């Protein structure tokens, strides 16, 4: 089976090609796309099972490396187009193809009747392929191909309904903000190559016996190396890791680059589920896990990672509390959860991060799909103030949504409880109290805003009657149910004491399962109780105040918080600040100045000035050419006087 891992990304790619060049009808497009991803999932599953039960003997620790062809080879720069299947990419591949297949299926129903549905499926397939390249790459460069490729697909899918200006600008914003991160990633890659002479993660034996060395296993070589910016010395490892961190903040929507993700909700909801919740945005976490040897060399960067994660978690959670748009709540929630993962990675708890990544992938996809179902059922209503009481019309959606919300809030024994608790436990045991506090508060807020959302959406009375709410079709509810089951069971992956996931990932992440003692137990109980309480509070409060909520109205809590609420709604004005204050207007003004004034008047002005000077000189010379022969004789004589004068002087 191992020799067929290239099928995993190829199948969706074929689906993409078919959808672009061959297929013209909606129905076929959906089936082909879903089929391609499902097949890919089956291959991945088969590979995974084989890997689990008869790991390849030759490599130690076990991994499968398949070099498809020699991609770039210039002088000593040698990068193969190679795929890697190891424990870490294995679980990622399963998540991507599994959740991906369900979302494809769901999309068949959700996108029915859309004018460009074939293109939609093509993009979706392309996305899966790119995501698979990202997680299956055996080197930084191919990873970067996937990294940018998913960004492109994100752009395409957010902009799927490009007739809407918001969609277009959100798409562009997503791409550009991601690009900022990607640029840092690029530089990081160059630094890695400059120092290790390779971009491959692990040693690769090529067909002809040559070996391309990997850099992760000899990351220590750069420990202690210094580079300097005038006046300041830095560790090279800090530089590289920090650049990677910037890349992560872009892709995984962390401070300060998270601003694109809420806007990205302009895309179709299944896209939000797949790309902006389950898979693409977690790529940053995957990257950090994959390159953890580099991060571990730099304590400074790890501190930054932790703080960025924790702060993002809190800020996004507070923002989520104040949203009216059902998808924006989930979007900020995603940012917040990603913050948890990043913080975990920063603390060195890579397994916990991956664990949370996986469970979050499942339950957040569920939530998004559920919200999609709601939107679908309410005829494209997204404002929760216009909803209410939907549980009666959409029972399946309601129940699955409830499961998802519970999982997100970290309610025992749903998936989110296990994974999130592990992160918080890490923060606690790492003696890092402020981080712990940030994460803890965030997790309480999570429960609160989910309670609020459920109350607003499903409870109370329907507040707007312009639509007739109805349950979605089977093709949409089926994935919901499957995911709900997943959201219940996914926690079993890494139950305390069993640590299946830890064990599985140990060869890659070199991290032993965390202790699970009394402290952790108490902590878990306390967290879940508080979370449940917080969730109940949210639910209770908004159910109680449901009468005050009308389309366009302010939140009942506004009374107490005042303008701070607005700040929350705007996510602390960070996005607004970019737009209005410095970065964007400054850039625009500078660009306009350069294009409108400096270039034509300044640089080109000099160029034309030369021409002008010559024409002026020419006109001046015409004055002497007066037409009077005596003047000519005069100049003649002047020449004579000068020449003779010179000859006399020497």
């Amino acid at each position: 089976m191992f020799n067929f891992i290239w099928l995993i990304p190829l199948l969706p790619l074929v689906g993409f090609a078919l959808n672009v060049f061959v297929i013209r009808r909606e129905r076929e497009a959906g089936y082909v796309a879903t089929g391609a991803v499902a097949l890919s999932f089956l291959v991945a599953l088969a590979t995974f099972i084989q890997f689990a039960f008869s790991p390849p003997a030759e490599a130690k620790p076990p991994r499968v490396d398949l070099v498809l062809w020699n991609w770039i080879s210039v002088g000593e720069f040698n990068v193969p187009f190679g795929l890697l299947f190891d424990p870490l990419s294995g679980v990622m591949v399963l998540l991507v193809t599994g959740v991906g297949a369900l979302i494809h299926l769901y999309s068949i129903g959700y996108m029915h009747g859309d004018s460009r549905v074939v293109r939609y499926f093509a993009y979706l397939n392309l996305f899966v392929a790119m995501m698979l390249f990202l997680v299956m790459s055996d080197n930084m460069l191919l990873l970067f191909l996937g990294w940018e490729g998913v960004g492109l697909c994100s752009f395409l899918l957010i902009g799927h309904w490009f007739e809407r200006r918001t969609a277009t600008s959100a798409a562009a914003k997503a791409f550009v903000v991601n690009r900022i991160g990607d640029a840092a990633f690029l530089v990081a890659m160059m630094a890695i190559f400059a120092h290790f002479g390779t971009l491959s993660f692990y040693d690769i034996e090529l067909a002809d016996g040559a070996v391309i060395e990997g850099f992760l296993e000899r990351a220590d070589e750069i420990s202690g190396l210094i580079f300097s910016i005038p006046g300041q010395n830095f560790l090279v490892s800090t530089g590289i890791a920090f650049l990677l961190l910037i890349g992560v903040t872009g892709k995984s929507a962390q401070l300060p680059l998270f601003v694109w993700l809420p806007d990205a909700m302009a895309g179709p909801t299944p896209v939000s589920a797949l790309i902006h919740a389950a898979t693409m945005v977690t790529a940053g976490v995957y990257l950090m896990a994959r390159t953890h040897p580099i991060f571990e060399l730099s304590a400074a960067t790890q501190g930054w990672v932790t703080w960025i994660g924790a702060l993002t978690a809190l800020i996004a959670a507070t923002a989520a509390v104040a949203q009216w748009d059902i998808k924006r709540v989930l979007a900020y929630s995603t940012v917040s959860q990603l913050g948890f993962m990043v913080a975990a990675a920063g603390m060195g708890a890579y397994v916990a991060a991956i664990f949370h990544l996986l469970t979050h992938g499942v339950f957040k996809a569920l939530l998004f799909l559920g919200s999609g179902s709601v939107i679908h059922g309410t005829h494209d209503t997204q404002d929760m103030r216009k909803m209410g009481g939907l549980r009666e019309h959409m029972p399946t959606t309601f129940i699955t949504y409830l499961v998802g919300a519970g999982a997100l809030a970290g309610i025992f024994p749903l998936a989110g409880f296990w994974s999130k608790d592990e992160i918080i436990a890490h923060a606690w045991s790492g003696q890092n109290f402020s981080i712990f506090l940030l994460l803890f508060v965030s997790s309480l807020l999570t429960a609160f805003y989910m309670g609020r959302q459920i109350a607003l959406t499903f409870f109370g009375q329907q507040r707007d009657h312009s639509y007739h709410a109805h349950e979605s079709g089977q093709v949409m509810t089926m994935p919901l149910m499957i995911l709900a089951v997943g959201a219940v069971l996914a926690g079993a992956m890494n139950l305390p004491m069993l640590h299946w996931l830890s064990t599985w990932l140990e060869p890659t992440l070199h991290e032993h399962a965390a202790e699970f003692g009394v402290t952790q137990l108490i902590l878990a109980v306390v967290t879940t109780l508080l979370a449940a309480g917080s969730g109940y509070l949210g639910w209770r409060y908004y159910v109680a105040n449901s009468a005050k909520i009308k389309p366009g109205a302010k939140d009942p809590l506004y009374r107490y918080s005042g303008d701070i609420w607005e700040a929350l709604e705007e996510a602390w004005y960070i996005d607004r600040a970019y737009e209005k204050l410095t970065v964007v207007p400054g850039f625009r003004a500078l660009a306009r100045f350069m294009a409108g004034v400096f270039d034509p008047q300044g640089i080109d002005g000099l160029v034309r000035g030369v021409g002008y000077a010559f024409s002026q000189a020419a006109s001046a010379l015409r004055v002497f050419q007066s037409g009077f022969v005596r003047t000519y004789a005069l100049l003649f004589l002047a020449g004579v006087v000068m020449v003779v004068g010179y000859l006399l002087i020497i």
Partner: protein
Amino acid sequence: MEFVIFFITAAIALIGAIAMLVSRNAVHSALFLLLNFSAIAILFLLLRAPFLFAVQLIVYAGAIMVLFLFVVMLLGAERAEDEKDKVAWQRPLAIGLGAALLVEAIFVGFNQLAMEPPTTPEVESFGAPARIGESLFTTYLLPFQITGIILLVAIIGVVVLNQRNRAKA
């Protein structure tokens, strides 16, 4: 004695030249030039060039100056420079340049004075017409021939320029 003649003749030549320069009337100019030419002819004699003395008087003073006078009279152009100069800066600049040229010329002259050999042998006959004539037909045969062609061309030129005028006018 020779010095006296020289200085007197030189003075006459200079006066003639300057008078030609400043005369408003072209006829006067021509006459002053005639005076100058005659003075130079005398200087030629002083310089042991009797042949040139004759040529100077016959060709220059006789033929060319008469031609000038004739044209001046014919065209009635003796008073052509009454109104103001069109180019204001022409005259001052010209005077300045003239002065500069004069300074340079005098510099050259004094330079020559310093270089001059103290005595020059007196040979009476080197400028005799016979010697000149012989030179023209031997050493200077080629220039002599070219001169002929030049004169031919000049004749054609005068004819072309005027015959045509008559034909078309």
